[in-house]
């Protein structure tokens, strides 16, 4: 099978240990990569060491917690951080005699996500049991969709910048194999001192969408960019809040390497990745580890590894005994899930029991890619500008708000937003919502600049002062620091004359040429 990928080819790189460089917190399109990934594709001649080039292959399994009030199959509340075992019903605790009842909202969330990712929605999908033993899975099985999931065969487009230059953005696509609905498990807290595990079932039964991405990616940066775009899409749809830090978005990476023209290598699964930044590091480390292992004559085990963020490396995971046999079987307590579209809508059914795919499609909000295009079209800004605007929560809205309140052209406003405001925010690790400078204040300042009442240097000074958040208006600061531009023609002439008088020789030299 031909290697489908970005054509990225890796050489044996320098050691990447714990001190991997990286940008500040938050996702990034142009991060520093540990190892160069050749994006131009095509065969690359072997390096100095005479070793044939390697093609890394990266696939992702992403679990997104569905944003809903109650759980997938029960009426317990979905909430992060609540007293242990307080959000647990008898069904969630797997007490005998309880049955699953499917939450409509969860189905809608999965359909929305499937449509946004260009999937075919299966009008009939099935639920199955996946069996394994673990303390946080009280039933001994997870209800999932293994045979026929709710959505299949989609795609996700994301952007990367070549050579760390924002001006050269390239669009890549990753295929979405499928999206399935499944239950989340409870949480295990390991108490090593007392040699026991504490189990909290609050999370047990919360609805998840598992999004499976085909191995079309070739490095950490691509994986990170794809996940970032998925995160933005989910947040725009509202189907998941997708906050990685709260466990609402979990990513497992499947990594392998092979030589061009040869079959795919043995893959390892990397788990315990807690941020998009760590995802890129974990993937790059694992690729590197596999290359080194193979070049030293070793072999790669088909195993599960955990990413250790402190050490910046992957380690074999304990508690995974060989290959698991999940003994999949149909979930006998749930009939098939039937979805309709406008054509197939049954005439005499209760509306509440019917999910119409077309109805959901019509009400999908503008996806990030569309929003970016609209910003470029409406305001004449560059694509990389709109990329950054959407990448920071609330920044696009802030920008549009300023534009509304000022006469300054959007093309000029964007510079103030991206260069000045954003860098202040980053320096102080603040979100847009936490900005001491509101859109109103910034617009006020930009108006002074636009009316030529102050110079742009003065404007930067005023902004620095505004940043302190002492409640002063731009005009007040201008007056305080005497930053007004002189408008009086006569006064200007007098000053110029005085300067010239003091520099007679220089003026003569200038006039003579």
């Amino acid at each position, binding site marked *: 099978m031909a290697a489908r990928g970005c054509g990225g080819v890796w050489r044996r790189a320098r050691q990447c240990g714990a001190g991997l460089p990286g940008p500040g917190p938050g996702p990034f399109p142009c991060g520093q990569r540990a190892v160069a990934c050749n994006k131009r594709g095509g065969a690359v001649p072997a390096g100095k060491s005479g070793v044939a080039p390697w093609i890394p292959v990266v696939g992702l399994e992403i679990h997104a917690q569905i944003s809903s009030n109650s759980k997938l199959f029960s009426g317990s509340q979905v909430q992060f951080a609540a007293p*242990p075992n307080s959000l647990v019903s008898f069904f969630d605790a797997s007490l005998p005699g309880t049955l699953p009842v499917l939450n409509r909202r969860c189905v809608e969330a999965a359909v929305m996500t499937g449509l946004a990712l260009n999937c075919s929605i299966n009008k009939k999908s099935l639920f199955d049991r996946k069996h394994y033993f673990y303390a946080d899975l009280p039933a001994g099985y997870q209800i999932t969709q293994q045979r026929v999931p709710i959505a299949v065969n989609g795609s996700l487009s994301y952007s990367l910048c070549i050579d760390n230059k924002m001006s050269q953005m390239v669009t890549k696509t990753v295929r979405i194999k499928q999206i399935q609905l499944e239950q989340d498990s409870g949480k295990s807290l390991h108490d090593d001192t007392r040699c026991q595990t504490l189990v909290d079932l609050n999370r047990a039964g919360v609805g998840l969408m598992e999004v499976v991405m085909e191995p079309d990616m070739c490095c950490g940066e691509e994986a990170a960019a794809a996940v970032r775009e998925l995160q933005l899409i989910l947040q725009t749809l509202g189907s998941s809040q997708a906050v990685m830090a709260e466990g609402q978005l979990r990513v497992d990476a499947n990594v392998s390497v092979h030589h061009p023209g040869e079959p795919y290598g043995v893959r390892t699964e990397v788990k315990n990745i807690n941020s998009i930044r760590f995802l890129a590091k974990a993937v790059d480390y694992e690729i590197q580890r596999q290359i080194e292992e193979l070049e030293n004559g070793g072999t790669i085990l088909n195993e599960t590894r955990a990413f250790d963020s402190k050490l910046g490396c992957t380690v074999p995971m304990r508690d995974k005994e060989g290959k698991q046999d999940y003994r999949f079987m149909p979930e006998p307590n749930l009939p098939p899930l039937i979805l309709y579209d406008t054509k197939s809508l049954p005439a005499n059914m209760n509306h509440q029991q019917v999910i119409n795919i077309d109805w959901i499609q019509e009400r999908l909000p503008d996806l990030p890619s569309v929003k970016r295009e609209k910003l470029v079209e409406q305001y004449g800004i560059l694509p990389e500008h709109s990329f950054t605007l959407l990448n920071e929560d609330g920044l696009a809205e802030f920008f549009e708000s300023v534009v509304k309140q000022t006469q300054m052209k959007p093309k000029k406003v964007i510079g103030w937003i991206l260069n000045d405001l954003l860098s202040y925010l980053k320096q102080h690790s603040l979100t847009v919502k936490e900005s001491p400078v509101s859109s109103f204040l910034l617009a006020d300042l930009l108006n002074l600049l636009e009316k030529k009442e102050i110079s742009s240097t003065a404007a930067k000074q005023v902004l620095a002062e505004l940043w302190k958040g002492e409640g002063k208006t731009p005009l007040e600061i201008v007056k305080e620091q005497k930053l007004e531009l002189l408008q009086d023609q006569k006064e200007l002439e007098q000053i110029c004359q005085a300067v010239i008088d003091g520099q007679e020789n220089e003026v003569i030299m200038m006039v003579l040429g």
Partner: protein
Amino acid sequence: QKVSVEVLDHLEHLALVDFRDSEGVERLQKAIQFADQLHEVNTDGVEPMDSVLEDRWCLYLREDDVTEGNCTKELLENAREKVEEYFVAPPGNIPLPKLEERETFLQGS
């Protein structure tokens, strides 16, 4: 065809059942033989059945309201051990002892 020792061991690991002795294994083999009769039916072009009720069984969709939970005390009554409203479990899965070390495996077979 007899069920091999490896398969029996594998099944005991997966399902944590204890076949215990030759009678248990015999019962398993009879059950497999019974199920194998399904192969005698020609199912070419026939979709697998999900339920005897077929199209008449619609999957009921529940509204997304919070209607359950907040019964920590009751749930913990079932726990043999608890720590501050957490269930207590061993540190990890306790693996089934290896074939050679198990006391009850295939006794008297």
